[in-house]
């Protein structure tokens, strides 16, 4: 994002969990930038550390886990090492998070209005009526019909898609500069997912907020993200623009992942399959974590691949990347 302002810079982030069985390096040296108004897709399978990366940024890593190394620079300020009070003033204000299950955000026994007004008043000294107005506008903004009446409703009176909209509206209330969306459409139906993607895209364009869209679904980020980072076993193995990653994936894991997605061109054929399964992060052996499943791995892969920049705008962690010439 040369020339553009960056909203968030993550440098060498390491979040480890100190369990009885050993150290789980859930996030192990992750670096990326998110520009203003940019949507960055963070893609990975279960246990790749994509959600923990999100939680680390917003300061929600619970013990036994903690950020052990790295910097998280948001709007020019390092978030690592901020105390609880300082973090609380940022959370829900400058940085907001949307979860897969909107009921994680919503309190089932309070009216939407109460919850939204509370979120405004927690960070602003404004009259309650003004806070209510802000709440109503936010509901309208995410496409909830008759927001005035819906403010009086309880979360259970909304459908799944509508609840997710309310959660997004709450995230937007204080005009955050960064929204972390953790699988926000995974539990939704296709047509409802389309609606939420549409709203998210529109909001980033209108408000200039940056977004980190965490998902396991490559097809979703292909449609919405400007850039994609692919995570595997706690590291970003490949990073680039959406077009580059989808059209010319260079890391064997990214290539395998894209090949595994069923599509219209694959009907009747066998899907490409990555053998084996994701390694346990507990006491992970040194070297490339993907080498056990990789078709081009050799002895050089016993050494940890360092991030390289073989192509403009691309970051790779691989000893044997597949660098095709663009057609």
């Amino acid at each position, binding site marked *: 994002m040369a020339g553009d302002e960056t909203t968030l810079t993550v440098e060498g982030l390491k979040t480890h969990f100190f369990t009885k069985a050993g150290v789980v390096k859930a996030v192990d040296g992750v670096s990326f930038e998110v520009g203003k108004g940019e949507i960055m897709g963070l893609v990975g399978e279960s246990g790749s550390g994509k959600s923990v990366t999100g939680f680390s940024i917003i300061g929600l890593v619970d013990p036994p886990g903690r950020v052990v190394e790295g910097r998280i620079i948001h709007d020019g300020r390092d978030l690592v090492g901020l105390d609880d009070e300082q973090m609380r003033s940022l959370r829900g204000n400058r940085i907001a998070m949307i979860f897969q299950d909107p009921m994680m955000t919503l309190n089932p026994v309070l009216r939407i209005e109460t919850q939204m007004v509370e979120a405004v008043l927690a960070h602003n000294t404004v009259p309650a009526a003004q806070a209510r107005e802000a709440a109503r506008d936010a509901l309208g903004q995410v496409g909830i019909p008759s927001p005035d009446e819906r403010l009086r409703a309880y979360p259970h009176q909304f459908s799944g898609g509508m609840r997710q909209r309310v959660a997004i509206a709450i995230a937007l209330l204080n005009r955050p500069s960064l929204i972390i969306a953790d699988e926000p459409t995974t539990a939704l139906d296709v047509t409802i997912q*389309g*609606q939420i993607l549409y709203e998210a895209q529109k909001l980033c364009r209108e408000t200039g907020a940056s977004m980190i869209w965490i998902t396991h679904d490559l097809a979703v980020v*292909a449609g919405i993200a400007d850039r994609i980072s692919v995570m595997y076993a706690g590291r970003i193995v490949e990073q680039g623009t959406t*077009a580059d990653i989808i059209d010319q994936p260079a890391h064997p894991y990214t290539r*395998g992942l894209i090949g595994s997605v069923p599509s219209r061109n694959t*009907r009747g054929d066998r899907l490409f399959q990555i053998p084996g399964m994701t390694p346990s992060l507990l006491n992970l052996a040194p070297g490339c974590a993907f080498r056990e499943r990789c078709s081009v791995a050799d002895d050089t892969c016993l050494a940890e691949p360092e991030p390289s920049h073989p192509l403009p705008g691309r970051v790779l962690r691989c000893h044997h990347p597949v660098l095709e010439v663009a057609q």
Partner: protein
Amino acid sequence: MIEARSISKRFVKSLDLAARIAGRLGASVREETVHALDGVSITVERGEVVGLVGESGCGKSTFGRIVAGIMEPTEGTILYRGRDLTTLQGAEAREAALEVQMIFQDPFASLNPRMRVENIIGEAPLLHGIVAKQERDGYVDATMRRVGLDPAFKRRYPHQFSGGQRQRIGIARALAVQPEFLVCDEAVAALDVSIQAQVLNLFMDLRRDLDLTYLFISHDLSVVEHISDRVVIMYLGRVVESAPSGELFDTPNHPYTRALLAGAPKLDARRRVYEPVMGEIPSPLDPPGGCHFHPRCPHAMPRCRHEAPVLRQIASGRHAACHLNDG
């Protein structure tokens, strides 16, 4: 091979004591009926893979359960090789029940956590006299190998396996009684992309090797497109369209099918602007009159509001239920 003739299923929530008393006293309480299925007819030919697609509440899982014999339809008949399953008695009924097996979405919930894998797989064939007691071990080994599991692990419990392996155990359990027809209800929905590809490939191998017929229920259009020969689309308890896979995805007829296809994220459609279908999925408790889709349909006419369109043939092998096809 299987012919479902105008299957209807209604779930009635009966009134509790308090509601009955309130009703006696003149309150307007009544029994609530969910029309999960409303005259659904689907035929599956031998060796065919039929994909059944729809969003939450469309009745696709209910239909799968009725076909698998787990539930009784309220109305309609299921013909298996021309015989009505409900009229069979004794040994014949048991035999017919074994021919149709079901694979469930959640491999965590569908395996008994207190049984060893060898018993999960070996119990039914032993009970039904498919194998003798002394041959059981070898039979279990062979079945496990067929689905890509190492027989060395047969003494383990389900929690000692990963999600993908557990799904394989579920498949092995279904295959152990030598069925001809498998009902897969969202069988790959809970799996990571790379594991999903492995299981989809397994389904295709099994189809080839064992000459199986599938009813493949899913909300994921790309999975269904990949694996199915024919696709049936359901909306709120009714079939709205059915066509050979290629034709359905190339030239969808029903406005709902078109909306579904447009809304689904795809790898090759990136940085697209989403144009969502408006509106919510109505509650099956109180579906809209006429064509169920009319409140969300961009082409709705006055006629759609009170007259339900019937499923009619629109081309060879293609059926759709839409008034637009009459004009």
